[in-house]
């Protein structure tokens, strides 16, 4: 159990700044995701929390205690890596017991602890097997078990499911989340997979080039992205940007694209210049009449839904519709945007303009 607070954390490797100035708070018992593309600084941040790297400046506190300059061994944190590191010459039981035996725990207590953890992970039947013959999933379960068994204050996980194939990853991510719901241990989890982050996280930090772009609940980050980077990185297909030059004033509820007036949430700040009208695929409806037109270029059938790619005067737009809806390639149709969900961006800085929709989230983001 631990609350982790990060203040102005910075890490430089020579002249390269891996993490610029991160601040965020991980509540006790939270499943917390560090999300971003490779090289964004997420793994470096995780390693600093674990004590595998020391920060260049800034502060990390675990349960109120400043641990910024303490070695990993004094932080009581367990680390799970992408490549499950198991002792190949030991069986599953010995692998699980090892962290406890090395702490000097009495044998009877070790046995009890190991069988409890094996039960949680559903690997009781494997306890006396050598780790060599285990499947990828079972190896990952044993690696997890070895982290859990010592009951550390917090878990650090660096893409633990990255090496697994899609179907199995889905299964393991559910299992991992269910395990967390039972144990309620603070977990910091690094991933580049936005779906994994949305699916498993209580909170998400989105990083890019060493900078935190946004921090918040997954659904808030999805619905109210603070930057164009976040809007593009989260969601598949990602948010559509219809780029236009124009101006908005505080209190307005629509913008003019080409000759069409499109509604937006009431704006809370004025802006003039290059804008992007950001709308998610599922908030676009195809209509027969709608004045904003697009030509259907492709459809991708997904079973429950389909993705329709359209060509408009403002570029390619992707819409998500029910699989039963008819869209013929080559046809020109109307597009109806759900104005309440729209975010306007300043395309120069990539920053979202404040509106009725996002002001609550951007204020403390």
């Amino acid at each position: 159990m631990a609350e982790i607070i990060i203040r102005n954390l910075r890490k430089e490797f020579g002249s390269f700044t891996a993490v610029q100035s991160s601040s965020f708070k991980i509540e006790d018992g939270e499943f917390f995701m560090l999300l971003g593309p490779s090289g964004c600084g997420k793994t470096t941040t995780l390693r600093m929390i674990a004590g595998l790297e020391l920060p260049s400046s800034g502060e990390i506190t675990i349960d109120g205690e400043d641990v910024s300059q303490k070695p990993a061994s004094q932080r009581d944190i367990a680390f799970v890596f992408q490549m499950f590191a198991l002792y190949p010459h030991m069986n599953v039981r010995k692998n699980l017991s090892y962290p406890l035996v090395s702490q000097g725990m009495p044998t009877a207590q070790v046995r009890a602890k190991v069988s409890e953890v094996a039960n949680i992970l559903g690997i009781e039947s494997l306890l006396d097997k050598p780790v060599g013959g285990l499947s990828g999933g079972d190896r990952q379960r044993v690696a997890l078990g070895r982290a859990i068994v010592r009951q550390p204050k917090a878990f650090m996980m660096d893409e633990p499911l990255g090496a697994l194939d899609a179907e199995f990853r889905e299964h393991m991510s559910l299992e991992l989340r269910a395990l967390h719901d039972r144990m309620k241990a603070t977990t910091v989890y690094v991933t580049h997979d936005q779906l994994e982050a949305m699916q498993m996280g209580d909170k998400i930090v989105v990083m890019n080039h060493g900078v935190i772009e946004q921090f918040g609940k997954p659904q808030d980050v999805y619905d109210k992205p603070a930057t164009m980077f976040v809007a593009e990185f989260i969601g598949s297909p990602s948010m559509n940007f219809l780029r236009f030059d124009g101006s908005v004033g505080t209190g307005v509820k629509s913008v003019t694209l080409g000759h069409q007036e499109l509604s937006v949430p009431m704006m809370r700040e004025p802006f003039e210049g290059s804008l992007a009208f950001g709308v998610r695929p599922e908030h676009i409806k195809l209509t027969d009449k709608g004045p904003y037109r697009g030509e259907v270029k492709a459809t991708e059938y997904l079973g429950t839904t389909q993705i329709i790619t359209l060509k408009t005067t403002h570029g390619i737009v992707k819409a998500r519709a029910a699989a039963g809806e008819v869209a013929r390639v080559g046809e020109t149709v109307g597009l109806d945007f759900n104005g309440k969900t729209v975010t306007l961006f300043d395309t120069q800085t990539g920053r979202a303009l404040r509106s009725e929709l996002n002001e609550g989230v951007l204020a403390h983001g």
Partner: protein
Amino acid sequence: MAEVKLQNVNKAFDQQSAVVDLSLTIPSGSFVVLLGPTGAGKTTTLRLISGLERPDNGDISIDGNSVLDITPAERDVAMVFQQYSLYPHMTVRDNLAFPLRSPLHKTPEAEITRKVSEVAEVLRISHKLDNKATALSGGEMQRVSIGRALVRNPSIYLMDEPLSSLDAKLRADLRVELKSIQANLGATFLYVTHDQIEAMTMATHIGVLDHGRLVQFGSPREIYENPVSLYVASRLGIPRLNVLPADIFGRAPKGAKSIGLRPEHIVQNSGKSAWVTRVERLGDQTRLHLKLDGHDIITLTDVHTRLGPGDPISIQPHNPLYFDAAGARIA
């Protein structure tokens, strides 16, 4: 472009059957995706067609002519592997041009230049044409190896999970690209994957393989909406198919052992009562994890639902799938 036909093909490695009595027609100009988990026989099928393996029995023909006794080179197939294999000492341009410069093809240099830049454009590697192949990222290398197949005009393109090593964004973009390339060329594609999204979005026909056997062949919509078995039904659908005892909602067709429910088969707010165990918000969709008589069910709900863990909800099936004890579809 050609029709490729497999008739009663068998292939075993050391007594282990890889492909069992496989009969499959890949129509000219179609995009056929073979779908199945690891070990289903997908890659072996590709290798049999390309001539890298020889069937134990059965026949393989391209455009009506048996190809069993001709070499891989003479079969005029282009293959893209999961692991990119480029000539490391050559530039991207030369790697792409290489197949065209083969003595078998004798392409004029002007035509080569045109082809290479066209393909590079489509795969968005134009700016890297003069780089050494080794100076590329993994994603770029894979695009070059796809490009090396696309510059040619073979009777069939054989692709073995070519997108699986790319990141999610690029994979999504290339899915659309590959599909439109295939449609524009009118080319015949046989594409192997275990990724159901690739299969659903690109294929004109999906062939589902199970332990070396072709268990269903049809359009993505047919396979998704009208699966012949529990195995096929479980291959497709996100979130995955829910499988429950057949009579859990009351009367079931005679002989039914289990009922299969996709989100669109579940009507909420009437029927049998269940509990919400978890609400999973994925942004564009929200998944409800339910417990019904001790069984786990995952379905979709309104994105901004107010339901939370512990809340009651009632559900009932709507045109569900039924399967017998052997897993065969019965309704």
